[in-house]
C-alpha cells in the first residue's frame, strides 16, 4: 500500500502542534471539570491545587494559541463569513424542502466556527474570572488578598464563573457527541493523525474555499 503522504492521497489538516494544543487543552479542561464538580457530588479530595494549576496551564496554551492563530495561521478560516451563513441557511431549508445538496464548507463548517466562537467566549470568561479568583488563594508565588475587589464584585465573578463552568460542561458534551457521530469520524480522525484522505477532502469540503497549505 502506498504512503498517503507521498502519493498525494493525504490532505494535511492539523499540524502536530495544533493537535498537541487540542489534547493538552482537553486534558486541562477535564481536570478543571473533575476538580470543580466531583466535590460537589460528594467525592471529597484535595482539588484546589490541581484546579488552579490546570487553569494556569489552560490559560497559557490559550494565549499561545491566540498568538499562533493571529500570526502564523489563517485567522479568518475560523471566522463565520457570508458564504457560511448562506450555506447554513441552504442546509436548514434543504432539510425540509429543497432537494439540492447543501453547500460544502471550507476548512471548517459553520457549526464548527460558531462552536469555536462559543467555547472561546466561555473559556475566556472562565480564564478571566478564574484568574481573578487566584487572588483568593495562597500559592508559592503570592499571598492571598481578597480585598482587591469588593464583596459585590466577587459575587459577580463567582456567579459568572459558575455559569460559564456549566456552559463549558454543555459545550464539551456537544463536542464529544459530534466527535463520536460516524458521519463526523473523518474529522475526529484528523485530530489524531493530522490528515484526511483526498476522497474525504473532496467529498466534504469546497476545494476552492479550502486549499491545503501543501497545495498553495
Amino acid at each position, binding site marked *: 500500500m502506498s504512503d498517503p503522504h507521498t502519493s498525494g492521497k493525504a490532505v494535511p489538516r492539523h499540524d502536530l502542534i495544533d493537535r498537541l494544543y487540542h489534547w493538552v487543552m482537553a486534558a486541562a479542561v477535564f481536570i478543571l471539570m473533575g476538580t470543580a464538580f466531583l466535590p460537589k457530588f460528594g467525592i*471529597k*479530595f*484535595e482539588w*484546589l491545587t490541581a484546579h488552579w494549576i490546570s487553569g494556569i496551564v489552560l490559560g497559557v496554551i490559550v494565549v499561545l494559541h491566540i498568538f499562533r492563530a493571529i500570526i502564523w495561521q489563517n485567522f479568518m478560516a475560523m471566522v463565520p463569513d457570508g458564504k457560511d451563513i448562506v450555506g447554513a441557511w441552504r442546509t436548514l431549508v434543504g432539510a425540509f424542502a429543497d432537494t439540492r445538496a447543501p453547500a460544502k464548507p471550507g476548512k471548517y463548517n459553520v457549526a464548527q466556527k460558531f462552536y469555536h466562537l462559543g467555547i472561546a467566549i466561555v473559556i475566556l470568561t472562565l480564564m478571566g474570572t478564574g484568574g481573578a479568583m487566584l487572588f*483568593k*488563594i495562597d500559592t508559592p508565588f503570592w499571598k*492571598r*488578598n*481578597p*480585598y482587591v475587589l469588593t*464583596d459585590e464584585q*466577587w*459575587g459577580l465573578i*463567582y456567579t459568572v464563573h459558575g455559569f460559564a463552568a456549566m456552559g463549558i460542561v454543555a459545550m464539551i458534551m456537544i463536542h464529544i457527541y459530534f466527535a463520536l457521530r460516524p458521519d463526523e469520524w473523518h474529522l475526529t480522525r484528523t485530530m489524531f493523525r493530522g490528515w484526511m484522505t483526498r476522497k474525504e477532502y473532496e467529498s466534504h469540503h469546497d476545494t476552492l474555499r479550502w486549499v491545503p497549505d501543501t497545495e498553495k
Partner: protein
Amino acid sequence: MIVRDIMADFELYQPTQLKDAFALLDQYGKDAWKMGGGYDSLSWFKERHKQPKAVIDLGGIAEMKGISETADGVTIGALTTLTEIENDPIIKGKYRVLAEAAAKVASPQIRNAGTVGGNVSQDARCLYYRYGLPCYRAGGNTCFADTPEGVNREHALFESDRCVAVSPSDTAVALVALDAKYVLRSSKGERIVSAEDFFVGPKVDIMHLTSTRPEEILVAINIPKKWAGSAFYFEKVADRNTWDFALVNVASAIVVKNGVIEDCRIVCNGVSAVPRRLTAVESIVKGKPMSEEIAKLAGQSSTRGARPLNYNGFKIPLMANLVTRAIRDAKV
C-alpha cells in the same frame, strides 16, 4: 436585624434507641441536627446561624454511654461525659492522657454535661465563622481571618487552605495519641475510622471538620491497649485557665525501655484544622534516649513548615516548647 439569643423553631426528637435515631436521620436528611451534650449546638441555635428543621437529641440513648474494658482495650460511648472520663479508674489508670485532656475542657459545669463525642465533633471556633459571616466554612467564598487586616491569633500554622480555622478539641489530641478508632454507624451499616482519619482539613472538605456523614452517628470510641500504661503528657495553653479553647495543646504517648524511646505518638492541636500528628518528630526521637537534648531537638523540629499569619507567630515558640515538654516530662 437578626434577633439573637432566641432560637428558631425546630422539631425536637429524643430517641432512646439508635435505630430510631437512624430512622429520623434518614427521614430528615440534611435538615436534621444531631445533638449530644448540646454545648456546640445550642450556641449555633441561639445565634440563629444554624436553623435545622429537626434536632435529634441523642442524650437518651443508653447504649452510647459508659466506659467498658474489652479484650482489645477500652470502649467509650460517644455520649460519655467528660467528667466521667476524667474520673474513670480505667482511663485514669491506663490511659491517663485522655483523663487529663478531658479535665482541661471548658469548666466543671460544661464537663458534667458535655460529651466526648461532642468534644471531638464540635465545629470550628473561628470568631468570623461563629459570628455568622459568609466565609468559606459557612459556604461562602472568602476567609475573613486570613486577610491583611484579619484577627487571626487563634488560627492555623499548618495545612490551611483558604480557611485557616483550627480544630478546637482537647480530647482529640489525646485520642489521636492513643491511636483510637471511631465507630460511625448509620442505618446502612458501620464503619470504623482511625482518630487521624476522623478529622478532615479544608483541602478535602472546607465546610466540615470531621468525616462523619450526615446519616451517621459517632456511637463509640475504641482505644487499643497498645498504649495502655505508657508514659503520657498533656498540656493545654489558653488565654485563661478555665472555660477557654486551647491556643495550642499537646498530647504524647511514649513507650520507654531502659531510658530509650521505643515508640511514641505526639499530637498538637490549635495549629491546624485537624489534630496534627508530628510524625517527623516521632521519627527523630524513636530509638533515642529520653533526654533534654532530644526533647529540645524534637521541639525545634515540630514547627518546621509553619506558615504563621499576621498575629499568630507566637504559636511557633509555644508549640516548640510544648512538644519539648511533651517528651521531656512524659511520665508513666
